[in-house]
């Protein structure tokens, strides 16, 4: 079993796929609903206090916006703990999204710094691409299990 960090970390589909292949998804999987009635698209699943942005200083300096540091207090430890990662670029909002582009840039950079198995895909734009997309994730997760 491998600890797999997923991006977007909120993606329920990705999180579910990782778990189905016997691995541990490192994520904050939450349903992105069709109607948005919360402050943000991915309002935090747990209580964030002003202490969290301070904890985030481990990954981003004080001149970095508080919202980035608050998110990093959640995702920083996951990136440190992960043994593999799946990154989906330009995902549709409904697939899973994270509200802050600056955090997204930092998260992807930190994942790239790690020498771990990594799958990076663009979000599919049609059915053909969709089939290849799922197959690539399936292959990656299967091989992770074998390698382990």
């Amino acid at each position: 079993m491998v600890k797999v960090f997923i991006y977007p970390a909120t993606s329920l589909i990705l999180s579910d796929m990782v778990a189905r292949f016997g691995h541990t998804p490192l994520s904050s999987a939450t349903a992105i609903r069709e109607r948005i009635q919360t402050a943000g698209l991915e309002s935090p699943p747990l209580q964030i206090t002003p202490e969290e942005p301070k904890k985030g200083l481990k990954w981003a300096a004080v001149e970095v916006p508080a919202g980035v540091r608050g998110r990093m207090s959640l995702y920083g430890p996951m990136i440190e703990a992960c043994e593999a990662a799946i990154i989906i670029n330009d995902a549709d909002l409904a697939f899973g999204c994270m509200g802050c582009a600056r955090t997204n840039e930092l998260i992807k950079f930190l994942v790239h710094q790690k020498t771990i198995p990594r799958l990076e895909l663009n979000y599919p734009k049609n059915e053909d691409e969709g089939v290849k997309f799922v197959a690539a994730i399936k292959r990656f997760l299967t091989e992770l299990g074998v390698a382990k």
Partner: protein
Amino acid sequence: MTQPVRIAQLSCGPEYSGIQHEIDEAAREVGGEIFYPDVALKDIRRDFAKFGLDVKSPDLKLAIARAMALVEGRVEADAVFIATCFRCAEAAIVRNELRRYINEHSRLPVVSYSFTERTTSGTLLTRMEALTTIARRRALLARETQKGLTLGLDSGSATTKAIVMRDNKIIGTGWQPTTEVIKSANEVIAHALAEAGVTRNEIQAVGTTGYGRFLVGKEIKADLIQEELTVNSKGAVYLADRQHGPATVIDIGGMDNKAISVMDGIPGVFTMGGICAGASGRFLEMTAKRLGVEITELGPLSMKGFGGRVPMNSYCIVFGTQSLVNALAAGSTREDVAAAACHSVAEQVYEQQLQEVDIKEPVIMVGGTSLIEGLVFAMGELLQTKIVVPPYSQYIGAVGSALLASGFIKDD
């Protein structure tokens, strides 16, 4: 029970900064209720493209879609609060453009704010109160003349001011530095009443504003306790006789600065605050002290100097004072240093706050600092306009309070 004022929040980052509950609390304290305009994912995709600002953060796209839903009437609100992370350039652009868009296309009062994890409900209180006041008291804010015998008190951070008005005329004034809040208030009230030749019992209605408004308001049983953003706007257009049409009100205070874009005497967009004390009236007080003159002499002194001869960057009051000391030690004249201090304060307010409101003429400067000619001159130079300083401008909050309080006089 009064219905809460519904304040639509357009934001990026307050939850992950840990301050969402502070925003909720500030709204609740002034009878407001924060809500998030309900939009669908397809609205975000469509409206974001239609608005035309190609930002990357999904939460900023959401804020754009919500602003469009408000302007197009798909979601109803009484006021709008726009909040994004301090130091985020992308968010700052969106914040400014949304504020401008909502102001131009709707009658909704808007306040924008950039927060850190240290933002508290106390910091937001006056801004939220102004939003709820504008939404709830439009009829009161539309008042153009003072009637009867009323008293207005402005319990400010640096000075306390009182005004007595009778039938649209100022008949008594009182002013002194704020020490003990209630004691200072009682003393200026006594002075104003004595000057007016009336007794406290004859006063038909009382209004308070400023930092000490709640404490003093309770003590003197005020009929109206109202924040200084709406009160000062009203006082400014009243005294400057610009009650109709657009105007911009600038109040450089002892502790913070206010820039308010006004239409028919009612604030539309406003900012409050300042990055550092170097942009406040307090810095000019320190300058006067270091130059060995009274604050009242700083203006005439600065008009005799040329600020361009003195390098001064007073973002911080400590470093600003250091520049001042260095300049004097290097042989600069007191006149040039006074002019440079005035220019520095005006420039910071221009750079940091006036960019957040739409400057529309006439520009009216009020508050104690509006009596410092060098500061008014420097602001006029920066804005390339003639600044209006109305009579009694230093009493602006007290005048606004006395004017609005007359709406509480009970008809016989």
